[in-house]
């Protein structure tokens, strides 16, 4: 006979993680796991929402009706992604209002990439191709993340993402096969977006304090540097195909590691943008705050109407 040992909640939790069993909202979980998740999921949600702004800029200026429809549907998808993710975070007991408040006050972070401006139509192509490409690379492993609602939201997100990168690539390809002016437009946009995109994977592993714990809890599946390397290896041949020059003089194939060596990332720039000093940090927060403030009366009115209608129904019942 085995002696029955009372297992601690923590042991049960760790066992589930070890055997790849998803954690669900009502399951016991360590407070720190919960906090890490709320932070990561809400940051992710904020990135989707703020990310609508730089591309949204171009919906009214898209150069053809087809591009306009695609871009509109794409930016709308990002709103959906934000929404799925906020919902996933809400299952952990934090309200969307609370998360919004943290975003709007500047307390919460979102992906720094969206603090760069979109200056030409080629930026829309570059964002779809590079930024969504990097996002997908980050997101695919998250479909297996240990928290159930997050993993399920990510499955939905990844399914929808698959056309985002392609439409971006298609824009770039059209420009690269177009006039001299269009080719220049594409190269110029590529030059501006390449490095900030590499920063999207986050700081170097040595400087990423949360990575180790997140890997152990299987919230994260790969380190920042692993994903960054994969991304470079994937994108360089695509850039070559387009006839674009990667703006990195140190880029070269390393036979031994079977991947590219690439130049040093300007981490000063990264941290500076994270701190709020990017070219568009202020504009982005202003736009989100404005939408939230100007929508307040609408949200209140709908609630007031719903309450009135409910009382009327009760009375007539």
């Amino acid at each position, binding site marked *: 006979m085995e002696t029955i040992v009372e297992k601690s909640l923590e042991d049960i939790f760790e066992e589930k993680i070890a055997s790849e069993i998803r954690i669900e909202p009502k399951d016991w979980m360590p407070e720190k796991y919960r906090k890490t998740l709320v932070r990561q999921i809400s940051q992710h949600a904020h990135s989707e929402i703020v990310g609508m702004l730089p591309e949204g800029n171009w919906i009214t200026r898209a150069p053809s*009706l087809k591009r306009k429809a695609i871009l*509109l*549907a794409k930016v709308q998808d990002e*709103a959906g992604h934000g929404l799925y993710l906020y919902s996933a975070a809400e299952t952990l007991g934090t309200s969307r209002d609370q998360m919004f408040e943290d975003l709007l006050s500047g307390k919460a972070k979102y992906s720094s990439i969206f603090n760069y401006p979109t200056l030409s139509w080629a930026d829309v192509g570059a964002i779809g191709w590079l930024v969504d490409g990097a996002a997908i690379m980050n997101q695919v492993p998250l479909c297996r993340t240990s928290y159930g609602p997050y993993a399920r939201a990510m499955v939905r997100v990844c399914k929808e993402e698959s*056309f985002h990168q392609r439409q971006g690539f298609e824009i770039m390809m059209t*420009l690269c096969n*177009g*006039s001299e002016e269009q080719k220049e437009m594409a190269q110029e946009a590529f030059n501006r977006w390449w490095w900030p995109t590499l920063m999207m994977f986050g700081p170097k592993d040595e400087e990423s304090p949360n990575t180790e714990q997140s890997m152990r809890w299987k919230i994260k599946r790969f380190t920042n540097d692993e994903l960054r390397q994969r991304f470079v290896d994937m994108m360089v041949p695509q850039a070559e195909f387009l006839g674009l020059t990667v703006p990195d003089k140190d880029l070269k194939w390393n036979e031994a590691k079977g991947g590219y060596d690439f130049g040093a990332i300007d981490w000063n720039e990264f941290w500076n943008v994270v701190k709020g000093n990017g070219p568009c940090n202020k504009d982005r927060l202003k736009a989100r705050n404005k939408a939230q403030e100007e*929508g307040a009366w609408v949200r209140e009115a709908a609630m007031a*109407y719903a309450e009135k209608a409910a009382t009327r129904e009760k009375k007539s019942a």
Partner: protein
Amino acid sequence: MMDHHTQPAHVLHELQFKTPLQEYSPEVRQLVFDYTLQLADTSLILSHRLAEWCGHGPILEQDMAMTNISLDLLGEARNLYQYAAELEGKGHTEDDLAYLRDAVAYKNPLLVEQPNGNFGDTVLRQFIFDTFHYFFLKELQNSTDHRLAAIAEKSLKEASYHIKWSSEWVIRLGDGTEESKKRMEAAIDELWTYSGELFEATPTEKALQELDIIPDYTSIKAEWDKHVAQVLQEATLALPQDQWMQSGGKYGRHSEHLGYILSDLQYLQRTYPGQKW
């Protein structure tokens, strides 16, 4: 390769109308062309206005709702422009028609080019239009012009959703808080004057009505009056008195707003003429 389920429906639905062109005399063909263009302009400009909300709505869920309506209208506009281009027979594309005509050539009614204002203004503009659009498409489905009938049939499904969305919101905001009621009253003051033009037939429209190609507006106006009165009553909003109605858009005499819309819309095509995007 690309899995169809991952494509947005709006992108998949390209070039779906393959009915061959009907035999028309050159005069009638010109009339149908002009009118199709007018419908296309109307849907495009309203779609454009709604798209301006993308990323700035009062709550995420409504951001998505407005984008959906915008995409529906854009899809409708494209179907119409494609048809117009075929009728014209000069080798123009939908984009040539949308991107290379100036404001005076645009024939949309004034209502749809009015600025978004606050969410209440947008809801009311949409409500005035959706109600018209819905009852109009119901009739246009029976057009003797097969293509217009097919486009109407497809768009009617979307318009049925639009009228539901905007009617519900008029009621909610009218009967919501004191503030929301005030805002809706202000929106009515501002926008009612543009409702009449929807039912005002230009010589082109009159000619097509006589040919039974497009519906008469009398019964549509009656349905519109009825629905609008019902919704406003439920919204506890007063039905406006008869008043001066602005018009001119259908003749190309627009408000100053349209020029700005077109300078955004057409900027790339104008700056880099003749290129592929």
